């Protein structure tokens, strides 16, 4: 479904992605982990064109991303993204946040969009809050709205960029639960996350990145039990000490 081949990117003299290769099959849940600055966020943002690439090619379904490709609007309808800082639109109600892209981008009639929004918000457990504004919700609630907002466009792939990193510990689980149920329903997902419990239990595969390269790829069970590379081993040792 998604194939990343020989992707590289530099910011001036600094090379942030070095010849990355990966494939994600339909329905797979892939977790990207690694130390800060390893390029994980940048890599995931190349998949929906939020970041351009200097070399290589990315294919998402039939859509092809390459250096110089600029028309990515069509791609964004089939790839949804959830951000670390939620990025809800503060001047719109929860319901409007979920309907606006449906009506403006997909041109759905307002009634259809609202119906869809209500059912998605119910799915993430927030029916009681649809007329509230983002500032009135907790971080965990805001992130769940953000997930509903992305799902409203019926994407084929969902990208999560450190979705729980900005949350207080007690709210992390409510978001992970939503992501877990999404995975069980067969959504193709790529998640950048530090939540190793989620990775171990829900992910099919783990990509470990360090210094801009994909150092190791393995299915989740193997990666946590017996990492092959030295860098992965020391990373896991540091993280799992808690």
């Amino acid at each position, binding site marked *: 479904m998604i194939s990343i081949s020989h992707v590289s990117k530099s910011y001036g003299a600094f090379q942030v992605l070095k010849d990355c290769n990966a494939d994600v099959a339909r329905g797979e849940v892939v977790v990207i982990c690694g130390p800060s600055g390893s390029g994980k966020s940048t890599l995931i943002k190349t998949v929906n064109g939020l970041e351009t690439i200097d070399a290589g090619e990315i294919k998402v379904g039939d859509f092809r991303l390459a250096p110089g490709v600029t028309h990515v609007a069509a791609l*964004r309808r089939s790839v*949804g993204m959830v951000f670390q800082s939620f*990025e809800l639109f503060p001047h719109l109600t929860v319901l409007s946040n979920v309907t*606006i892209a449906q009506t*403006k*981008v997909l041109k759905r009639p307002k009634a259809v969009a609202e119906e869809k929004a209500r059912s998605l918000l119910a799915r993430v457990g927030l029916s009681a809050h649809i007329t509230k504004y983002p*500032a009135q919700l*907790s971080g965990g609630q805001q992130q769940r709205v953000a997930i509903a907002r992305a799902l409203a*466009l019926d994407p084929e792939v969902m990208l999560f960029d450190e979705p729980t990193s900005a949350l207080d510990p007690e709210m992390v689980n409510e978001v992970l639960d939503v992501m877990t149920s999404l995975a069980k329903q067969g959504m193709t997902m790529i998640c950048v996350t530090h939540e190793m419990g989620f990775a171990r239990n829900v992910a099919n595969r783990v990509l470990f990145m360090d210094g801009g390269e994909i150092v190791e790829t393995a299915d989740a069970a193997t990666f946590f039990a017996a990492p092959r590379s030295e860098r992965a081993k020391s990373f896991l040792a540091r993280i799992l000490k808690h």
Partner: protein
Amino acid sequence: MNFNLSAITSVVPFLLSGLLFTIEITVVGVIGGIVFGSLLAVARLSSNRLLSAFATAYINLMRSIPLIMVIFWVFFLVPWAIGWLTNGGRPVAVGASLTIYVTFVLFEAAYYAEIVRAGFRSISSGQYAACEALGLSKLHAYVYILFPQAIRNVLPILLTQTIILFQDTSLVYVISATDLLGAATKIAQRDGKLVEMYLTVGVIYFLFCYSASQLVKRLQGRLAYGAR
């Protein structure tokens, strides 16, 4: 020194007509200035080099020269500009009001542009990314998501600039226009009642501007997004 109250009451109608003109200039200046200023701000942020350079040059030029100088320029240029467009190159006599409106829209737009630009800069960069990720077109993103937030963030400053505009209108004195100050001056010169007229006008301006600035302060308290 004589302070004659009846001197004031007899000329109230004329003063009111002057005040009306002052308000008209302010309203036109605010609406035109914010519209043109917003376009300038967006042009300045645009990736089109030529457009961005033009907008930046215009804003910096307008903000570096006095309003009185701009008034003189526009009064000189507008008859020529209209003549060039319609009369085969010879200047056309144009009413003072229209020229004044044009002056204030052109001048204040540069100031509103900087305020709107600050408004855009106050939006977190993630908002742009979220709009992109949802596939919103640039036009939709600006109209529905970015511009409303930008304006809301700088609304107090926008309103303060409007109060300044209201005060700036008094400068049309230099072309003998009959705004509030102009009306007072004409009465003062005709009746010799300088002290009464100028003090009255001072009080009127003060009451308008002070009340407006107090309203803005109260608005500032209400505008926070009501975060938990």
